[in-house]
């Protein structure tokens, strides 16, 4: 069997195969935990819809409030948050999972690079998240009258794609926590995630927040993602008019992904120096 050695390939090709391995692994996990995925889907859909109904419940007479627009505003927030928060959580979650199962040692001793490890896992989350969000969107549009007549879907997708990169970067930075301590690490990620939920204007415009929260909102990629996607879907804005939301996302992505890789690399070295990776034996 040793004689049938796998052919020697260029490093980049090996990394590509490894990236596919991470995508495949998380796909297998989704498949095996399908019941949980379904439960989580139902929960997220119900959550989004219940928020949508808040919009419907507001009387049209009240201050000339446009109910259809409000409902659409709220639902975009709910759907986008369910997608972006998953991207943010996925690395942290996967790293703590790998630590519980003990497979992290096998991942770390393989020749696959850390960038491949983290990016491969995120790619799966993006694909899975998009499919999930599209299904949820289709389901929700059966129940609500949405104001999407003038929607510019292309520019919404552009904003979403760029926002995905910054969220993955944010996720990389926090994924170092469960690497050092699975339980405490997940707690930190969760607190961080709820802060994003609070300040990013998911169910309300950011300007209703107290000043200091608004200040924090300016460094949350979710804020710009929502602004951009809402502008595209509600007001049919194009990429150039959405530029004020797009450039901060580009900057954050360009900073967070390399920063995340670097922080994770430092965390890995620290874990290897102090012997944190082992479970026992």
């Amino acid at each position, binding site marked *: *069997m040793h004689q049938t050695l*796998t052919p020697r390939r260029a490093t980049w090709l090996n990394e590509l195969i490894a990236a596919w391995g991470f995508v495949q692994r998380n796909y297998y996990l989704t498949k095996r935990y399908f019941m949980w995925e379904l439960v989580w889907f139902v929960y997220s859909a119900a959550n989004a819809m219940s928020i949508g109904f808040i919009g419907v419940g507001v009387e049209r007479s009240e201050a000339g409030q446009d109910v259809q627009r409000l409902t659409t505003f709220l639902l975009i927030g709910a759907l986008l948050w369910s997608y972006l928060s998953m991207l943010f959580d996925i690395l942290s979650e996967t790293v703590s999972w790998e630590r519980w199962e003990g497979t992290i040692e096998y991942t770390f001793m393989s020749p696959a690079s850390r960038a491949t490890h983290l990016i491969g896992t995120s790619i799966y989350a993006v694909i899975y998240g998009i499919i999930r969000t599209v299904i949820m969107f289709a389901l929700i549009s059966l129940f609500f009258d949405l104001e999407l007549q003038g929607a510019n879907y292309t520019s919404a997708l552009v904003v979403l794609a760029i926002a995905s990169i910054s969220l993955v970067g944010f996720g990389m930075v926090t994924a170092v926590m469960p690497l050092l301590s699975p339980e405490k690490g997940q707690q930190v990620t969760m607190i961080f995630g709820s802060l994003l939920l609070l300040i990013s204007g998911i169910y309300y415009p950011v300007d209703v927040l107290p000043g200091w929260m608004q200040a924090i909102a300016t460094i949350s990629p979710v804020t710009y993602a929502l602004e951009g996607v809402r502008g595209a879907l509600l007001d049919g804005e194009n990429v150039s008019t959405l530029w004020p939301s797009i450039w901060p996302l580009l900057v954050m992505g360009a900073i967070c992904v390399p920063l995340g890789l670097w922080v994770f690399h430092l965390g890995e070295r620290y874990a290897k120096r102090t*012997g944190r990776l082992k479970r026992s034996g």
Partner: protein
Amino acid sequence: MERDHALELVAVEKRFTRKRGSEVVALAGVSLQVRRGEVVGILGPNGSGKSTLVRVVSTLILPDAGSVRVFGADALRHPRAAQRMMNRVSVEASFFKKLSAWENLMYSAKFYGVTTNEARPRIGDILEGVGFDVKRAHEPMEHLSRGMQQKVALARALLTSPMLMLLDEPTTGLDPRSKKDVQAVIERIRSEHDASILLCTHDMDEAESLCDRVGIMVNGQIVELDEPTALKRRYQKNGRLPNLEEVFMAVTGSSFSDAEERESAEAAA
């Protein structure tokens, strides 16, 4: 540095800091060579540093001092090249328990650049080779016995065609039959796969029957390292050749009186 060495450690040191700041010396200057195609066993009491040694070689622990080379590649400075050439099986199987053996093997082989098409025919062969009932390859791993999980762990390592195998107590906790099966696989890895092996174990018979040379580790140091028969000869008393367990007891029994006894024993021989 010799290319002929599958593994070469020079003066490797590692200490860990415990919770209240106290230090544990896990490796106190370990030097060791495993030649190409050789099987070297490491015996040693609990906490003597065997697993730390294996983790240092497999790049999971960074040592404080010393060097580690795998087929000439510096595992500390250029881990990628070294990682590609080795794999490890430890006491704990460590899999995603809900995934099947097949799935676990399929994805993890990709980290070593083995594609689905390359892995597919080999997974069957390798599982069969390690005596795993291939019909159960699609069941969740949590349904499998520890012995079967350990066979999948061997298969995971073999699938990446390692030239150096690191085995950390691969048979500990297995029933006698599974133990025999796993030992037979190790025997075959060395004969058919042309791999070099570092085997940590608590099982004297296993060390004796599988290994070309056996090292005995005490307090983070390899205090003896030789062919089993040479070790026994060194510790013979009154002309009687001890078995490996008696050698182990004598070596790990520590203290200076032992060294004195040894000298007198050698003088008598």
